């Protein structure tokens, strides 16, 4: 079983793609770092008692005037940069993954049903998708955030920020899934194995989820990867614009926004350390997405 898996075409292609292997390792390392941040990081950037202003603005260890306790230096508050990016990545990944999963469930559900039933239901879903497309991802996310500000009292808005942000990102991504699922379902629906199931009188839900869904997983998996990258970028962008997460619970985007203030003053690491970290994370996810696309659609190579 394990040998067969090791020898399968996908794994074989993976073993022979250095870029994919490196990307996979980087992604796993970052994921691990984010997951175990509370145990790995020497200080908790959310807890004011674990750092002190005295350690503020220390450069990384290879620069002059650094402190060996802080591998990548500290920010103006004296927060350890390593701890900050680990916790930041934790938040960014959490929001990105949740948003991507919500978008997947919503989009695939609607897309499957639209492709399966066709007709009026399909037309309605696709028109909603049209409207959504006219309002691109970042706009949708900004808008939902704006609405939440208008509807929720300021205090609860702060508390619910992560939820609002996640939902905003999820809502701006579902169309991708819906369109792909619908297009693939249209193709599968006319294949004979689906017709056979329909003739037998199987329940539509069973036909959709038991028969069709496993056959359209390939392209969906690619979109899940690519949209995870999009979601992380979107969260960073929103936080950068100052309407994402606040400075006391910094995601990678918030860290970059804070770092921007030091762009001109010489404390480059406060900006570039989280930036490089974010780019490394997204690049590795995108490389994996590209690799999956090649595996599922080998003709494009």
């Amino acid at each position, binding site marked *: 079983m394990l040998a067969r898996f090791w020898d399968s075409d996908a794994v074989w292609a993976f073993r022979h793609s250095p*870029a994919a292997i490196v990307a996979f390792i980087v992604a796993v390392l970052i994921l691990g770092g984010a997951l175990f941040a509370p145990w790995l990081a020497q200080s908790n950037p959310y807890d004011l008692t674990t750092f002190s202003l005295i350690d503020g603005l220390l450069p990384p260890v290879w620069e002059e005037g650094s402190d060996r306790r802080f591998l990548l230096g500290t920010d103006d508050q004296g927060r350890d940069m390593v701890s900050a990016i680990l916790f930041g990545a934790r938040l960014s990944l959490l929001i990105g993954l949740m948003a991507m999963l919500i978008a997947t469930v919503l989009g695939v559900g609607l897309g499957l049903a639209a492709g399966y039933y066709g007709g009026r239901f399909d037309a309605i879903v696709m*028109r*909603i998708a*049209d*409207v959504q*497309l*006219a*309002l*691109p*991802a*970042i*706009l949708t996310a*900004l*808008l939902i*955030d*704006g*609405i939440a*500000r*208008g*509807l929720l009292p300021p205090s609860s808005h702060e508390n619910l920020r992560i939820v609002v942000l996640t939902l905003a990102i999820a809502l701006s991504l579902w169309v991708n899934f819906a369109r792909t699922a619908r297009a693939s379902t249209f193709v599968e629906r006319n294949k004979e194995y689906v017709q056979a199931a329909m003739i037998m009188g199987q329940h539509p839900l069973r036909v959709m989820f038991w028969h069709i869904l496993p056959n359209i997983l390939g392209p969906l998996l690619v979109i899940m990867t690519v949209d995870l*990258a999009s979601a992380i*970028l979107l969260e*960073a*962008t929103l936080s*950068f*614009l*100052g*309407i994402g997460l606040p400075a006391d619970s910094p995601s990678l*985007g918030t860290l*970059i926004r804070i770092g*921007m203030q030091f*762009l*001109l003053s010489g404390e480059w690491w406060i*900006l570039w350390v989280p*930036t490089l970290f*974010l*780019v490394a994370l*997204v*690049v590795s*996810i*995108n*490389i994996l997405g*590209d690799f999956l696309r090649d595996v599922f659609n080998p*003709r*494009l*190579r």
Partner: protein
Amino acid sequence: MVYFILKRLLQSVFVMLAVALLAFSLFRFVGDPVSQMTGVETSVEDRERLREELGLNDPFIAQFARFTGDMLQGDFGFSYRTRQPVAEMIADRIPATLELGTVALIISLIVGIPAGVYTALRPRGFITQTILMTTLVGVSIPTFVIGIMLIFLFGVQLGWLPTFGRGGTVEIGGWTSSLFTIDGWRALILPALTLGVYQLTLTMRLVRAEMMEVLRSDYIRFATARGIPYRRLHFRHALANTMIPVITIIGLQFGGVIAFSIVTESVFQWPGMGLLFLESIRFVDIPVMGVYLVVIAFFFVLVNLLVDMLYIAIDPRLRVKEAA
């Protein structure tokens, strides 16, 4: 063909109506318009009178119809924050955003399409692999980071180009343009590049994928077997067929360009609609938010209608009836 155009028009009207409904719901249900317009000292009776005057007690449909009617006549209401007419505020900002978006789109097309064609024709070359890797990194860097990097390099380190504002502008018939002064162009280069780079990578990857698909098609194989010169084969046969799906998606992307200009405008303090929108979100200035939505959707719909026309020009299957 007429039916095709009519159908698309009808779909566009539907999208516009839906967005208008969204904008109206925002206005009507997010916060109370009356308390936004009045001060603390306004009496309850005065508020009620204002409510009645504004027609806020009418049925929802009637209110929405009036809202849409007003919009069609160019009456977009007043900003909660500045008390100015929203129409003026937006109109002031439109030229900046459109110039930025158009220049960015042109950059992305004139670099993206040739690069896509090249990488499709030589899928295994070293240059192709380099381009592919570069674009992969390109789509992975957030727009605002690209902006920061450009500012850092050309603005701060080299000091060649301005890092904020529009530079010298010229007013032509109510349209403030930065395209007619050197200063204006200098200010435009960095924001347009920032916005263009992301679109460029998308365009290139799309052209490449579609072109490779077309190159495998039977009619290309048949044309190859007839010894049609490669240049003609690639640029007349393959590229034309590639462009059909590509222009559709580029039309869809134009919305993305406008939306991402929010980020670019924020990084470069570019006085466009995006910056206005960001400010209006910060101050929960609902009328401006709503109108911005409608304007964005309008541009999106307009561009996609133009794309449909282009479609008809390229694809004879839409122009000429099938023989029985």
